[in-house]
């Protein structure tokens, strides 16, 4: 809220120091003890050289049909000014930007200096200005820019030579507070007065209020009816014989400083009292009402709120609260008024309404209709229910006075049931216990007193009475906060939690998750963190489990982020595309994170940790030296890294199997393997299907995705240390010629199974096909290592074992030993 400190000072005793530095210091203090600030300063900002002048003569410009030459008087001398303003006339008091004046350019917002100018041959010593030309937004200026310059009225009490910025209120120091949702009390000048008084230890002196003598309902002109679920209270007063012209300058300037556009006396006073007290007020032109029986009710099917020249707004039946006169909708309660019943300059009879509408209805109405007004905002945040009738009386009295009108007999109202004052009990000990302080009763009592919260204290036990304006204070913790912030959080001691110590351990699962990332990084993969929300296609493109439903957003923000991922690879491929588009073509990326499998309506999905990796382009960072050697990633590069990962994370390597798989639509059918741990499915590895990468211009991308949950569950076995054998090893090379269709794995398994007791290790080292071999055959080469862990192995034993194994290979697989 924009708070005018000069205005606020009228309610503070002895009053704030409003010098520039003091205001800055105050702003700092507000931020440390109250709320954040949007801005501090004046509407005038850095402008200068603006003066009130009297127009003494206006003569036509000899060479222009839209400009005139004026002589204006600034209290000391007469100055010639040429202007194109359509409304300039002799005798007016207007604003002159002198030669040398600095004003904010309306379009660019830059500070510009006014210079002596020749306008079609006539010299102009300055410029007559509209309020929009000296810092006022179009939305708050009382007159359209096209209508011309600002003209003071006789009642404005200004004279030639006055500082125009000052008389327009544009030099009033303003602070714009950024409110947290709880501090509804700071949405009014009155609330700000209490807050700043507490902060600076001053007294709040609000203007005396007049309670109108006539409180009778029986002879009221207007009747009101309604349900207390929709409004806990609703009251109107009626004024007659009003003369509703423009408001005086003091009122207008307070409004435009606060961001309200001055309209006419009645509307302006309603806004002024809203600002002053936080109680929203609405006004209707009584002569435009269909009946005098007002009703607060829910909208009916088909009802609309007229919006002037715009199309009428359809109301939501049984959801929007309206104020109606029969079938005539006067307003969407607390939010927007029907322009057809609005108070204008011609209005002579006025209904002033002060309601206490149900905030939760208003919040939803404002949201659904995307209409949020100064009133609705205050209703939503919570208004002071204790002052509504008082404010209504007061504003009615002020309106009557300013418009020379009369208050028509009678008050029409419903609701306003008696509310007992709220109290909260709290002790000094509790306050100190939570804040970690040792504040005395005197200190705490002084803080409550500064906040103008009535207290009843005995032996450090407080009973605090909560005034209606502080809707945010409902529990003891709220009062602890009040004490804490006014005592000053800077003054709190610092400590670290004491008492019983707790171990800061990671669980075995957490250790694996962290180790998993480390291994991937050791293997040369950069960690990526991609978006979990994606398209339905990408969300399921690389699924391990094809049969689970996706989790989709009810109301997505954009079409690329509608569905929660079921795999990580899609996101990694988005990252790959992004990089390749920027000419980064050698990539090794991994991601570890959640995937989401739906489990039915209104049930949280199953979330599983996955791991995925992708390799594209050169696998080494620098490879100039290898020259012709092929460094471009292939299937075996990604598979090898996955194998190294699975071994290092602690899976039993001998239980890991790779099986040719053509079941993944987004993967190359000939270069993809499903990976199993025993009979448990782990994931897959292979080349991304070229069609998937069609628009990325990538040569090839190789990737894997595995279910980390399976890895975690099966990698907890402790390290099984075995002493390194001191007996020598014997190695034998084996080359076998087999049918092309035979998997290497089958040969490998056969060698392992038939190698004898001393076969320690089998390493595949060569694949040869083509020249010199019969068609349809391939040659596989292995190195076999034999070792006896307890004795020196005899050559002949190895030879026997080797031959026995080769015989089996020939017999079982038709292998030819080469």
């Amino acid at each position, binding site marked *: 809220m924009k708070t005018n400190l000069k205005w606020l000072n009228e309610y503070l005793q002895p009053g704030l120091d409003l010098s520039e530095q003091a205001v800055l210091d105050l702003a700092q203090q507000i931020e440390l003890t109250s709320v954040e600030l949007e801005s501090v300063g004046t509407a005038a900002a850095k402008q200068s050289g603006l003066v009130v002048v009297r127009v003494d003569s206006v003569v036509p410009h000899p060479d222009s049909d839209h400009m005139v030459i004026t002589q204006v008087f600034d209290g000391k001398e007469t100055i010639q000014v040429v202007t194109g303003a359509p409304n300039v006339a002799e005798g007016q008091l207007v604003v002159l930007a002198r030669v040398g004046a600095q004003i904010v350019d309306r379009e660019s917002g830059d500070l510009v200096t006014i210079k002596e100018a020749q306008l079609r041959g006539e010299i102009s010593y300055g410029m007559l200005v509209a309020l929009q030309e000296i810092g006022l937004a179009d939305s708050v200026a009382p007159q359209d820019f096209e209508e011309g310059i600002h003209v003071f009225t006789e009642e404005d009490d200004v004279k030639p030579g006055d500082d125009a910025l000052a008389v327009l209120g544009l030099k009033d120091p303003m602070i714009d507070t950024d409110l947290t949702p709880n501090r509804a009390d700071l949405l009014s000048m009155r609330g700000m007065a209490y807050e700043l008084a507490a902060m600076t230890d001053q007294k709040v002196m609000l203007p005396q209020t007049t309670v109108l003598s006539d409180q009778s309902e029986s002879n009221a002109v207007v009747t009101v009816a309604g349900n207390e679920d929709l409004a806990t209270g609703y009251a109107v007063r009626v004024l007659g014989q009003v003369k509703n012209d423009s408001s005086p300058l003091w009122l207008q300037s307070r409004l435009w400083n606060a961001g309200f556009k001055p309209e006419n006396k009645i509307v302006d006073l309603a806004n002024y009292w809203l600002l002053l007290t936080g109680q929203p007020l609405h006004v209707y032109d009584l002569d435009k009402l269909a009946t005098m029986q007002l009703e607060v009710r829910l909208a009916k099917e088909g009802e609309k709120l007229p919006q002037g020249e715009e199309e009428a707004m359809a109301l939501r039946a049984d959801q929007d609260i309206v104020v109606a006169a029969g079938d005539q909708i006067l307003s969407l309660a607390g939010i927007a008024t029907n322009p057809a019943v609005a108070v204008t300059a011609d209005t002579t009879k006025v209904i002033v309404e002060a309601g206490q509408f149900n905030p939760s209805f208003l919040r939803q109405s404002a949201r659904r209709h995307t209409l949020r007004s100064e009133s609705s905002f205050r209703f939503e945040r919570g208004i002071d229910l204790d002052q509504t009738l008082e404010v209504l009386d007061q504003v009615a009295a002020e309106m009557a006075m300013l418009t020379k009108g009369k208050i028509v007999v009678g008050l029409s109202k419903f609701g306003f049931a008696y509310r007992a004052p709220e109290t909260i009990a709290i002790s000094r000990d509790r306050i100190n216990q939570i804040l970690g302080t040792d504040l005395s009763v005197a200190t705490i009592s002084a803080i409550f007193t500064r906040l103008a919260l009535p207290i009843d204290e005995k032996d450090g036990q407080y009973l605090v009475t909560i005034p209606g304006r502080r809707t945010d204070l409902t529990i003891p913790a709220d009062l602890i906060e009040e004490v804490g912030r006014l005592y000053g*959080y800077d003054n709190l001691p610092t400590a670290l939690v004491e008492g019983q110590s707790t171990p800061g351990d990671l669980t075995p699962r957490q250790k694996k998750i962290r180790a998993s990332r480390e291994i991937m990084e050791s293997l040369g993969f950069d960690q990526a963190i991609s978006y979990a929300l994606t398209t339905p296609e990408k969300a399921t493109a690389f699924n391990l489990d094809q049969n689970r439903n996706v*989790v989709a957003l009810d109301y997505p923000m954009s079409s690329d982020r509608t569905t929660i991922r079921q795999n990580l690879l899609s996101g990694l491929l988005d990252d790959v595309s992004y990089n390749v588009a920027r000419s980064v073509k050698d990539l090794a990326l991994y991601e570890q994170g959640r995937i989401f499998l739906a489990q039915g309506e209104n049930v949280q999905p199953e979330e599983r940790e996955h791991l995925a990796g992708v390799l594209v382009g050169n696998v080494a960072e620098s490879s100039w030296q290898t020259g012709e050697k092929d460094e471009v990633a292939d299937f075996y590069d990604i598979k090898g890294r996955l194998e190294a990962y699975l071994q290092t994370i602690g899976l039993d390597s001998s239980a890991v199997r790779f099986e040719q798989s053509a079941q993944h639509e987004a993967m190359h059918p000939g270069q993809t393997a499903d990976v199993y741990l025993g009979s448990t499915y782990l994931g897959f590895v292979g080349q991304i299907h070229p069609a998937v990468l069609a628009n990325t211009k990538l040569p090839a991308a190789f990737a894997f995705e595995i279910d980390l949950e399976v890895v975690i569950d099966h990698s907890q076995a402790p390290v099984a240390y075995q002493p390194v054998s001191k007996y020598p090893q014997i190695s034998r090379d084996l080359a076998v010629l087999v049918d092309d269709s035979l998997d290497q794995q089958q040969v490998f398994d056969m060698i392992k199974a038939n190698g004898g007791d001393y076969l320690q290790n089998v390493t595949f080292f060569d694949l040869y096909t083509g020249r010199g071999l019969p068609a349809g055959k391939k040659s596989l080469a292995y190195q076999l290592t034999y070792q006896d862990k307890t004795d020196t192995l005899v050559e002949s034993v190895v030879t026997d074992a080797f031959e026995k194994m080769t015989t089996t290979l020939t017999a079982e697989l038709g292998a030819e030993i080469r």
Partner: protein
Amino acid sequence: MTLIDELQAIAKQAEADLAAKGADLEQVRVAYLGKKGKITTVLKSMKDLSIDEKKAVGQVGNQVRQQIQDSLAAMKAVQEKAAMDAKLQAETLDVTLPGTKPKLGNRHVLQQIMDEIESHFLGLGYQVIDDPIDSPEVETDEYNFERENLPKDHPARDMQDTFYVTPEILLRTQTSPVQSRALEKHDFSKGPLKMIAPGKVYRRDTDDATHSHQFHQVEGLVVGKNITMADLKGTLLSIMQELFGKKHQIRLRPSYFPFTEPSVEVDVSWNEVTEDTKPEDIRWIEVLGAGMTHPNVLKMDGVDPEEYSAFAFGLGPDRFAMLKYGVEDIRQFYLNDVRFLDQFNKRGN
């Protein structure tokens, strides 16, 4: 010429042969010391001499043989060294050419920040809650909002635009719901609950330089007897000094969160603060929200707010990384441009 003279002449000749440039040492050895070599030949001709003469000639013969052998060995060493030198010379490389670097993987900058936070709080005896069961990213409205003291109609729900899946299921907007899940399981007879919950959160925001529909939070919660706001202040000071440096200070400002009361915003000093720093010279940057856990939240989680008190805080790794490194666009964290990621490849700092 006596045989001795002959032998000495042979020795002289051998030295000369060996000293010749590029001498073939094997050839020299055979020529002088071989079975048919010059020394053997001389010694063979000694058969006609007397015993004494034989003895004298034999002695000289042995001396000369030894001398030639020594010279041969010495020359061999010289030649080998020369050969090695020549070989190494031929192997000279341009050492300014780039080395063959194995590709190292880098940890994502957000992960680095979260790791740093995690290790700090592990050191302070906190547990880390980040598994899918206790810290789900898809939450219920109940845990994300209602248990955090944000009933359906609460104005503060406007502060967090939410991705709903159904009216009851949503993408969590904060890591705070992990608190409730942890409190339900915690056994207070084993001491206070001290936990952090790092993870992803989601808001219905349009992505731009300072907004992301996905970002990270690390929620912290301590519940025990006599937990105070001074503890909160000390804890926040310690983590901020861990992240930004020991000479940085923090300040607390009043704020509002439905799940804490009192609530504070925490600023960290952008510059280092010493005893001589004037207050007006400190530039404060807002970094996180925190507070004393609202009694309603404790009650809903089955903890008696009269007996226990608690503080909670929410750290924003994305914001910290932006501040710490001057990253101007939050989207950089999720595009995974390796030219961006690889800049954060320094370990141990």
